[in-house]
């Protein structure tokens, strides 16, 4: 009887059987990387805004405090998007003829909000409160990155649940003194500071499902 398969099939079958293990492992790895990539999480994506507002300019070059615009960050769940009036506090005095700011003046005249594009979006099924995080010593920069270096705002972190849990499981790695919350360049000097602050601030970071999924 003649051979049904060519000799090469011996090698081919061995390679395909052993290769499938690596192929499957590779596919799993690719899926894991993809799910965490900016393509899925939108991390690192700067969106075009109706007015090219630069945090870099206002925070870094002018030295405006975060709370000047995001007024409710210490007291409410939502940090707050400033009304046009906040812009006009200054821009009635400076750059009042600027072409770039035409939309701001238009909004001020007509009382219609500027349609800012939201960058940090959590699922509707997630409860998040800024004030408790600020009160317990989590700095802006820990989650939002170096906003003072962003010409257009982007989302620095993945906002994935594993990222939330990373801090909630070990808050001592991220906590800082309350007077350093709005400091973009704070660096910890005392290595025991984290443990000390967790105790001092009585941080009991929640890890039950219904802390966030209420």
């Amino acid at each position, binding site marked *: *009887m003649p051979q*049904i*398969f060519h000799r090469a099939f*011996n090698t081919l*079958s061995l390679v395909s059987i052993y290769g499938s293990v690596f192929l499957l492992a590779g596919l*799993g790895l690719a899926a*894991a990387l993809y*799910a*965490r990539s900016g393509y899925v999480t939108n991390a690192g994506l700067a969106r075009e805004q109706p007015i090219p507002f630069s945090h870099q300019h206002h925070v870094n070059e002018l030295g405006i405090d975060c709370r000047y615009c995001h007024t409710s960050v210490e007291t409410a769940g939502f940090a707050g998007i400033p009304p046009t009036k906040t812009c006009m506090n200054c821009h009635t005095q400076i750059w009042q003829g600027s072409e770039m700011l035409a939309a701001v003046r238009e909004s001020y005249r007509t009382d219609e909000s500027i349609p800012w594009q939201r960058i940090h979006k959590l699922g509707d099924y997630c409860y998040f409160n800024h004030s408790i995080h600020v009160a317990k010593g989590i700095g802006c920069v820990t989650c939002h990155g170096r906003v003072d270096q962003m010409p257009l705002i982007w989302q620095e972190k*993945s906002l*994935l*649940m*594993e990222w939330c*849990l*990373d801090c909630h499981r070990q808050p001592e790695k991220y906590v800082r003194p309350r007077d350093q919350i709005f400091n973009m360049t704070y660096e910890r000097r005392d290595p025991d500071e984290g443990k000390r602050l967790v105790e001092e601030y009585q941080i009991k970071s929640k890890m039950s499902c219904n802390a966030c999924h209420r």
Partner: protein
Amino acid sequence: MAQAPSQSELQEGQIIAPGHSFGTITDKIGSIVQARRTPKRWWTGFLIGFTLMMLLFLTIGNLLARGIGIWGNNAPVGWGFDIVNFVWWIGIGHAGTLISAILLLLRQRWRTSINRFAEAMTLFAVACAGLYPLFHMGRPWFFYWLLPYPNTMELWPQWRSPLIWDVFAVTTYATVSLLFWFIGLIPDMATLRDRSKWWIGRVFYGILAMGWRGSAVHWHRYETAYLLLAGLATPLVVSVHTVVSFDFAVSIVPGWHVTIFPPYFVAGAIYSGFAMVLTLAIPLRKMYKLEDFITDTHLDYMARIMLTTGLMVAYGYGIELFMAWYSGNVYEKGLIANRLIGPYRWFFYALIACNVVAPQLLWFKKVRYSPWTLFVLSLIVNLGMWLERYVIIVVSLHRDYLPSSWGMYSGTGWDWSMYLGTIGLFFACLFLFIRFLPVISIFEMRTLLPEAHVHTEKEAKP
């Protein structure tokens, strides 16, 4: 082609008709697969199964479009047909594993002619069973959330939940059963490859034979692998349905929170499994005239196992009643009262009639040697085991601790179509298996012949 012996020579206690040779066995089993013409009866059976399978796909499509609200599941009865059918199918699968693994280790040589299709039955039954929890999830595309993998939520499955144990029990069971079945097929695939008259058959069976040449080394490795897998599969016979019973026993629902559940479920699984093997074996041997290989003795042995496990199950029912009284627990007693005189009492009495009363006929040798009586009995037991799960699940759930939350349950048309659909899937797969793979293990049948036992002169005869 060697002449096949006549059936009349077959005597009681023989597991293969006398007069067969290596050649006649190979011819007889191989010709089912390699016949040029497909018999009309095959087409009839396959098309019925296929049509019902289409009903399954219709149901699943509708289920995905509209959600599990199309089923009858409601607030007190959150588990309905889906879990009833899941347990029913998983139970049926158990006979295959018992026959292939435990009977192999116990050197029960009569298993040889029924293990192949019993194992196929196991695989298809597990496939049918798996559909129910999958689609009960409502969003089955997230099924992988049940598995421990490094997900972006950094969440691990809830290991304290028996439902997670179930996932592992059933997937392990499916994997080991598939491997066992496939490895057992390899030498036969080579036989079919060598006998195939068409190029396509040689390639198809050639790939499945994985280069089997029947050398001594091949046989040595085959025997080792098969024995190891049998050892692996043996605990699964007991563990899978034990874990399934934990789905209930670990909860605190009266009627579920019972320590006898694991052994009682395992006995029930083997009971229903052997009933299904008989349901399949009797028409199968008639259709392909396989009475030489699946003899009346085989049917007798299977009927005896059915009787034994049936008695164990009956003991389970008795203990449930006894324990409700003995515990003095008002909820347990309430549950039993509800079972006996509640709105679903006829399900319970039908269950006792099917599972406890009817099988007592198997004490009679005449019944055990009458294939068509056995066939009807096996159908009755299959029905009884379905009713048992219905009684356990629905009757326990519909009236729990709080009378204000009591309710009633009945399956909707879509529940029934899903059930019929999985039966269709099961039979469609089974008919394809009969047509394309050897339904009885050819090479193991050959070992039943006296000429397979060659002894040297020095060696004493057994």
